[in-house]
């Protein structure tokens, strides 16, 4: 691994994003508009808006980074650039960290804008502080990125890559505790929920909303970080310098 190559790769991915202003606009505008919509859907109930709004600040970056990474990595595989990169001294870790760095920047922009609207205008409240929200949003963005990288190995076309979004995201969304508290689920579903990383990101955000910075919050963050590392390691195993 070589820091100059990692940085050059992050810069390259960011330049590709910047050259696609429509995608950047969608990345920022869609979650902002949804947040505003949510605020007025729950017009009478600030508490409900607080809890769902905070969860969404973690779910948006997860979904967008999953989608962007799975398509971007599939393009690297199908256009031949990945094979070419692997004839150079770029290490797998340079590629993974390069993508992670670039998407972390994109997430800071996305969550920054949405937070500004949500906290500054819509009156969303996170008692433990916006710093925690940003940290958890970043973690779930990187989780989305790592899973997107992994599934890109199992897709041959962009159509297939996009189909992985509902397959990977919707079960986690249904079981993360946003729609029904996890404690009220039947045992089987609660166990499933315990296996899915998004549950921990959403639980962590709920803690941040209540202002309880405790062992549970630290455990939640640790679980999400461990899942990122595991998914990245699995994803890295699908990147092969030599193919048949």
């Amino acid at each position, binding site marked *: 691994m070589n820091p100059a190559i990692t940085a050059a790769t992050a810069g390259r991915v960011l*330049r590709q994003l910047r050259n*696609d202003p429509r995608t950047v606009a969608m990345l920022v505008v869609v979650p902002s508009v949804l947040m505003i919509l949510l605020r007025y859907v729950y017009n009478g109930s600030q508490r409900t808006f607080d809890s769902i709004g905070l969860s969404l600040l973690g779910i948006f970056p997860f979904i967008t980074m999953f989608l962007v990474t799975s398509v971007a990595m599939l393009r690297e595989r199908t256009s031949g650039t990945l*094979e070419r*990169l692997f*004839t*150079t001294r770029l290490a797998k870790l340079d590629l993974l960290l390069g993508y992670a760095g670039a998407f972390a920047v994109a997430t800071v922009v996305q969550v920054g804008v949405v937070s500004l609207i949500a906290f500054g205008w819509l009156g969303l409240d996170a008692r433990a502080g916006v710093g925690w929200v940003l940290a958890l949003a970043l973690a779930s963005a990187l989780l989305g990125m790592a899973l997107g990288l992994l599934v890109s190995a199992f897709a041959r076309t962009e159509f297939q890559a996009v189909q992985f979004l509902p397959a990977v995201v919707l079960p986690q969304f249904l079981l993360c505790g946003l729609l029904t508290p996890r404690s009220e689920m039947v045992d089987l579903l609660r166990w499933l929920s315990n296996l899915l990383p998004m549950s921990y990101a959403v639980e962590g955000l709920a803690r941040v909303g209540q202002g309880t910075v405790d062992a549970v919050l630290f455990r939640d963050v640790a679980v999400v970080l461990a899942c990122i590392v595991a998914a990245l390691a699995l994803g890295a195993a699908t990147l092969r310098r*030599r193919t*048949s």
Partner: protein
Amino acid sequence: MADPAIAVENLVVYRGKRQVLFDLSCAVPAGQVTGLLGPSGGGKTTLLRSIVGVQVIRSGTVTVLGLPAGDPALRTRIGYVTQAPSVYADLSVADNVRYFAALTSGADRVEEVLASVDLADRAADRVDQLSGGQRARVSLACALVGAPPLLVLDEPTVGLDPVLRRDLWNLFHDLARGGSTILISSHVMDEAARCDRLLLLRDGRLYADDTPAAIRHQTGTEDLEEAFLRLATDSEEAR
């Protein structure tokens, strides 16, 4: 021959269940332009992939610049241009070349390299706005920018106009005179005469490994296309 830049011995490669290369041996001399010629589907790309170290091989050895193919120390010493231009369509020409420069030497030769492939005036344009031939040249520029001692080029001149093709061949010979080794594949026989040395690959087997003059002499014809036809017929009869 002094130590060859590339030595292939008894190479056997399968892609899926199909055998693509059959016990193939050849040597590519250093400091020359060697042409790998033959019809499409004959195994040219697979041989080049084996040399740059991205192909899983069944048996045999491939030695490149004194090291086994795929050795990490070779990664800064080989410039590889794939058949389909493998560059980022959503980046500018200069951004592509600059990125590959960072992956190789890091030296800032972007303008010089773009001038050598006649793209200096398109540096700021996005690759997806270019024609197929121009994209192929961006891909070539990305390989040239690290000034590697070995260039492996998979059909880099397809779809280019004759003047540009001549200029690129002159560039390849200039690089060879400067000490680089160039292995270039083509299915166009009229490019054979421009090479210092020729490898003819057909159905995964090598039919010729010699200089154009020696091949002409051996087959008794001045026309290289005719010479290849005779070599191919002879070996098929021998088999």
